[in-house]
């Protein structure tokens, strides 16, 4: 028995006499495609979603190669170079291609007599590709010190400051690369836990119905009617101070994944209920297929795309949750670096007015959330043109 029970006519346009004219060969191809293939074909028509997919993939590449892309140690502090504004890389010098940045020189403020470092156009430091920098572990496995960009020569305080530095003199660009990794991974981890909870509870709810369904549905209703942020703030704040960064990381992941599972469970249950009535499931039941086989072979393929769509809509919610909690100082704790922790520095309006580049972590947050939303919308439309 094949799992493809899609007739071409039912997946075409909305007004009665309209549809895809297409030829017979195309129709045959259509009729034999699996649900996932169909979803992918419909998805390709959403240009915005396709672009978003590329953006999301790029973000995850950044996450994978965060240390390689960073130019200086994201943890290295240097009080003398605090709040250096963003420095561009000058590509040309004296008519030739010679990428360089300016070195720093100490200047004493004439009024406060404080020594501060500012860029010195007289001292040009060449920028090299695949230069050596601080040591790190690629994918946590291979020890290396090769970075995409690096300086040739220069003193201890010199560096490439594409996005400027924070109060402690740490390079914001390098911190952002590393933050991307942590923020995206915590989203993925949170979604995995949510997905597990959602599929299990939603599946049980949809499959067995009756009082189990009622119980789980009430639980979801209760969870959805509680204002989450104060609750999770409370839970996060109750984590012991003595916990290590990794423990906190895991705990936060679990806390934020407790937000996401209700929606996933709702989607899974809805699909189970709808599919249970479908002719092909009834047919498989009548043919004597076991329940496990019906679920895995017949039902799962036809709602996998819905689940993928729901996941891509749940991911941004996870990322926002982590960012919000960390921003409040209740999520991840330094020395961990996430977008929320970077934005924490921008909380004070006085500081922000003097160093607006501290807000730059808002850009990846917004872009990645937007991309995930478009992607999820495209996927949802593709998975179910009527839902």
């Amino acid at each position, binding site marked *: 028995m094949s799992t493809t029970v899609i007739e071409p006519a039912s997946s075409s*346009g909305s*007004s*009665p*006499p*309209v*549809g*895809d*004219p*297409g030829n017979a060969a195309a129709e045959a191809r259509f009729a034999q495609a699996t649900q996932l293939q169909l979803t992918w074909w419909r998805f390709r028509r959403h240009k915005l979603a396709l672009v978003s997919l590329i953006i999301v993939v790029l973000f995850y590449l950044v996450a994978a190669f965060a240390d390689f892309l960073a130019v200086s140690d994201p943890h290295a502090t240097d009080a003398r170079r605090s709040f250096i504004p963003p420095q561009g890389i000058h590509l040309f010098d004296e008519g030739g291609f010679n990428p360089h940045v300016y070195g720093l020189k100490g200047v004493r403020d004439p009024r406060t007599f404080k020594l501060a470092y500012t860029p010195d156009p007289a001292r040009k430091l060449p920028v090299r590709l695949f230069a050596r920098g601080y040591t790190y572990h690629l994918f946590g496995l291979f020890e290396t010190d090769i970075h995409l960009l690096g300086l040739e020569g220069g003193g201890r305080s010199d560096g490439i400051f594409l996005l400027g530095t924070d109060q402690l003199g740490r390079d914001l660009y390098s911190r952002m690369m590393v933050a991307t990794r942590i923020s995206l991974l915590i989203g993925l981890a949170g979604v995995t836990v949510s997905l597990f909870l959602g599929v299990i509870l939603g599946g049980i709810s949809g499959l067995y119905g009756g009082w189990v369904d009622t119980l789980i549905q009430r639980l979801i209703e209760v969870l959805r009617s509680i204002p989450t942020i104060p609750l999770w703030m409370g839970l996060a704040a109750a984590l012991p101070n003595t916990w290590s960064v990794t423990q906190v990381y895991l705990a936060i992941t679990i806390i934020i994944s407790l937000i996401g599972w209700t929606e996933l469970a709702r989607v899974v249950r809805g699909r189970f209920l709808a599919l249970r009535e479908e002719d092909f499931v009834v047919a498989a039941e009548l043919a004597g297929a076991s329940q496990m086989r019906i679920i895995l072979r017949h039902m799962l393929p036809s709602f996998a795309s819905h689940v993928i769509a729901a996941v891509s809509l749940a991911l941004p919610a996870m990322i926002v949750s982590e960012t919000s909690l960390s921003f409040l100082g209740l999520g991840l704790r330094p020395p961990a670096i996430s977008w929320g922790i970077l934005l924490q520095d921008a909380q004070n309006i006085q500081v922000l007015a003097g160093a607006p580049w501290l807000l730059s972590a808002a850009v990846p947050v917004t872009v990645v959330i937007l991309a995930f939303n478009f992607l999820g919308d495209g996927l949802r439309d593709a998975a179910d043109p009527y839902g």
Partner: protein
Amino acid sequence: MAEPSALSIRDLAVQFRNEQGVIRALDGVSFDLRAGQTLGIVGESGCGKSVTARSILRLIDRPGRITGGQILLDPAGPQAIDLTALDPDSRQMQQVRGGRIGLIFQEPMTALSVHYTVGNQIIEAIRQHRDLSKADAKAQAIALLGEVGIPHPQRRIDAYPFELSGGLRQRVGIAMALAGNPDIVIADEPTTALDVTTQAQILGLLQRLQREKGIALMLITHDMGVIAEMADEVAVMYLGRIVETAPVERLFAAPRHPYTRALLRAVPSILATPRQRLSTIGGAVPHPGLRPTGCSFHPRCTEMLGERCRREIPASVPLGVSGGASCFLPGASE
């Protein structure tokens, strides 16, 4: 038989344009609806019956568009109006809808809004076309509900549609179509969604109202039995075209188009021997976007004449009381 025509459709063409191309839903439809008579329009699903009905009221949704032809209201009178020339949103068109032409729907459940009472929806239709006070309109609505055979109309007027049975809902639908005193009523498969006994009652009601009020009724159906019962004249549609028109007796006695013959063979007969297989028409209606060349019925036709049917499009059905068929077979268009 030669009543004046209340509504004349001439070469009506409707296209739906979407990203995959242009679909000709109606491709040169012409017929006359005579005053006080019932015209049955029959054909398989997707042949353009409903599109015809909606085009007349200028209610086709985007991306559908009337691309040619005329819809003439009162063609014989001094003030003939071509509905295709009106702006669908114009006041004049709004007066035609409900005021001159009433529409009865297939699905009595979904055609009524569940959020308002039956009375609210009918009174609204009455006051749209007649200058009446609320109380007078309500009295009218109650009278109308009684007229369409709803028991206890004073009580039922405050009911919500979901509180009524399917048959009663369809009666409400009919009352609503009649609220503006139209002289033309289009009934789009009015009994398809109902069970058999209710069907007979609703058809009887339609027939009675049509006679009492002298309405020109355009009855759209795919049921030859309904046609035989109700119609004075019949138009058979296939793929957005009229393939045959005839007075009802003539159609059943001597069908001229092979498609009509096939349709009639597919009607279960009480005279058939037990266990005799019902005749079906081979193949399915092609997608309107994949219209066959030549006569569009030729791939399914059992009486095909050969190359000519594949290449040439037969002439349209002649207008006139005796009708004719759009076919190359000898004697088809006499």
